């Protein structure tokens, strides 16, 4: 078909329909596609913010063989016919990516050992591949109090990387958004401004879209480290959502319910709060069988230890801000 566009990424080519982004093409190609911390395909308008997916466009198109002057965010840059992209093969890309990961970590608390997300945290995965041995950051870190937003969700803002996914999720999955991004710059925070709870049938999904441990399931906290529990695919008849979930079980006990993530770590079938928070008996569910874990993840590769980045000198210093 002539209206397909040919794109070459790290030497491998694929033909994709117009409108496809570099990230989408790379994911279709398989192999090592660019990481994503803010882009989330099922949510409209996400992407372009975190910059970990930067790639080099060595040739813009067949018609325009010049390279693009700067690295581009692969998650929002559309493919052109004859485009040549360098991802893992470009030292410039890897250097930029290491830089972005370093930036994401400077204000991140190194509390993986006590974080609920440990073992399934995108930032943790990313820092294994792109982290420095030792942090060069010696200044104070940003800190926030953890707060409860409603009966089900806890916000630990200190861990947030401001990917905006939860904001888009709230906008697109729930009718009325009550949380958002407040302030600006590096004192931006996710919040509700006034103490307010997020109460909406689909609000629990903000937990699943959060790439780090900033939004966590209050009904699950501290029950069990994720890698000690076993995931099972299960479903139930639900009149609010698809009812297709993952049950995280220890023995016969359901310690947590989440939506199913695809191979890119994204939820396409969002679930309702009823399924997520209110059905914790095995008898509530039809269990389909054990679930395969994504091999790249920390739990998958069974490489969970202490984080690579050693704690900074003054982790406890309060971040001075206005």
């Amino acid at each position, binding site marked *: 078909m002539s209206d397909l566009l040919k794109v070459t990424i790290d030497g491998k080519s694929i033909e994709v329909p117009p409108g496809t982004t570099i990230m989408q093409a790379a994911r279709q190609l398989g192999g090592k596609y660019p990481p994503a911390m803010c882009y989330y395909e099922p949510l409209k308008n996400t992407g*372009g*913010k*975190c*910059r*970990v997916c*930067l790639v080099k466009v060595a040739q813009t198109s067949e018609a325009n063989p010049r390279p693009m002057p*700067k*690295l581009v*965010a692969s998650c*929002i840059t559309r493919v052109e016919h004859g485009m040549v992209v360098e991802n893992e093969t470009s030292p410039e890309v890897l*250097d*930029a990516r290491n*830089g*972005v990961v*370093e*930036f*994401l970590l*400077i*204000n991140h608390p190194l509390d993986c050992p006590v974080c609920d997300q440990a073992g399934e945290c995108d930032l943790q995965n990313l820092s294994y591949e792109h982290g420095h041995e030792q942090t*060069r*950051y010696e*200044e*104070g870190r940003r800190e926030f109090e953890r707060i409860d937003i409603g009966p089900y969700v806890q916000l630990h803002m200190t861990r947030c*990387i*401001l990917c*905006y996914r939860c904001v888009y999720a709230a906008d697109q999955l729930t009718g009325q958004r009550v949380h958002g*991004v407040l*302030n*600006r*710059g*590096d*004192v*931006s925070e996710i919040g509700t401004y006034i103490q307010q709870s997020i109460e909406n049938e689909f609000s629990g999904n903000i937990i699943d879209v959060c790439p780090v441990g900033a939004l966590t399931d209050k009904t699950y906290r501290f029950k069990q480290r994720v890698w000690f529990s076993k995931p099972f695919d299960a479903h139930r008849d639900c009149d609010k959502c698809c009812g297709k979930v993952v049950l995280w079980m220890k023995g016969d006990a359901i310690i947590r319910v989440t939506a199913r993530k695809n191979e890119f770590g994204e939820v396409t079938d969002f679930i309702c709060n009823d399924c997520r928070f209110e059905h914790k008996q095995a008898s509530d569910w039809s269990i389909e069988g054990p679930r395969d874990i994504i091999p790249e993840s920390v739990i998958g590769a069974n490489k969970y230890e202490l984080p690579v980045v050693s704690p900074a000198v003054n982790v406890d210093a309060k971040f*001075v801000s*206005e």
Partner: protein
Amino acid sequence: MATKILLENLAVEGIRAIDTYMANGGYRAVSKALKEMSPDQLVEEVKASGLRGRGGAGFPTGMKWSFLDKKSDKPRYLVCNADESEPGTFKDRYLMERIPHLLIEGMITASYALGANTSYIYVRGEMMSVIRLLERAIAEAYAKGFLGKNILGSGYDLELYVQPGGGAYICGEETALLESLEGKRGNPRNKPPFPAVSGLYGCPTVINNVETIASVPWIVNNGGAAYASIGLGKSTGTKLISACGNIRQPGVYEIELGLPVEEFIYSDAYCGGIAEGRELKAVVPGGSSVPILPKELILKTAAGEPRLMSYESLADGGFVSGSMLGSGGFIVFDERACIVRNLWNFTRFYHHESCGQCSPCREGTGWMEKVLHRIEHGHGKMSDIDLLVDVAKHIEGKTICPLGDAAAWPVGSAIRHFRDEFEAHVKHPDSCLAKHLHGAYAHAVPIMEP
């Protein structure tokens, strides 16, 4: 006497009022454009003039206008960028305060050229008095029939409004400005799509600086060729330069592009030399974002040619030995000024103004500020200097909008040209030049952060 295009009638008493403005030739361009020229002809004249955007990037205005998507059946918008927040830049405020009708006349002619029937002037909120002044002037223009329906019987309609900002440098970036004008946080948009295709409310939009738009009436009246004959090479016409810092006569000067920098600094017609007879040390020639140049490199290029006030000459040598004309914010440092302290100040500014959307700028600006703060206050290490260069490199070119670059360039250039000063701060933490001084930078105590 140098040609004056924008400030020609500056000294005319009462020029703020529409009658005086008209008595001095004002609004001729509106009747000429609407009655005698087609919109396309107007775009062609502006193309022929070689006029380049005066907001900082220097992009050819006529070309920008020709990119506007005219096939779209959506309304088209012209938005004037009067956010003027780049440190060292105060030319737009000067122009709007003194000759407000020049901007309004420019908005009418430019809107006509672009086929816009609603246009906005986005003025930073701090300039409330300018906003009031512009609103009064717009009311006068409506009363004279230069705005509204069927202007001067031409069949062309235009509504013109002033929109206040809320205190955010980033809203000078054109897509952040559009977000702000839509009532949102000033987060820059990823491009493409460019505003010419999808701008305000998703409609084709042109954003131009105050000075750019104010240059249009002259081009309408005198022709693009006449404008192109002024200036030097591709730097056509005149430019407002706002000069500040340690000079005898700070102020706004309209210069013909191509004027030697040395003349601009030392002539009594312009800066009048360095204040109190001191020595020139360095200049940031185009607003705080552009690279700083030491005396030798601002007066002469690396090749020994005289440096000129033009886009090309100021950029000669790239970022190794050159800088940029930028917005025309000309900041002069005398021998006493502390480059480290100034860099800390500028970096603090970018940290404070980062919108926080993308990680390199959000995190990197704060990191650089903290390291610079340490160095300036006697807690620096030698390795900090290279760390700063490296952090700046990891920001530059990796962000959504150019604020990241704007934060990185001053760091790279100050360390490139004044590395010894940074090392001296590290080696002799107590002997920062500033501590021995009175007046400028007299206080070593950090008093700037709340």
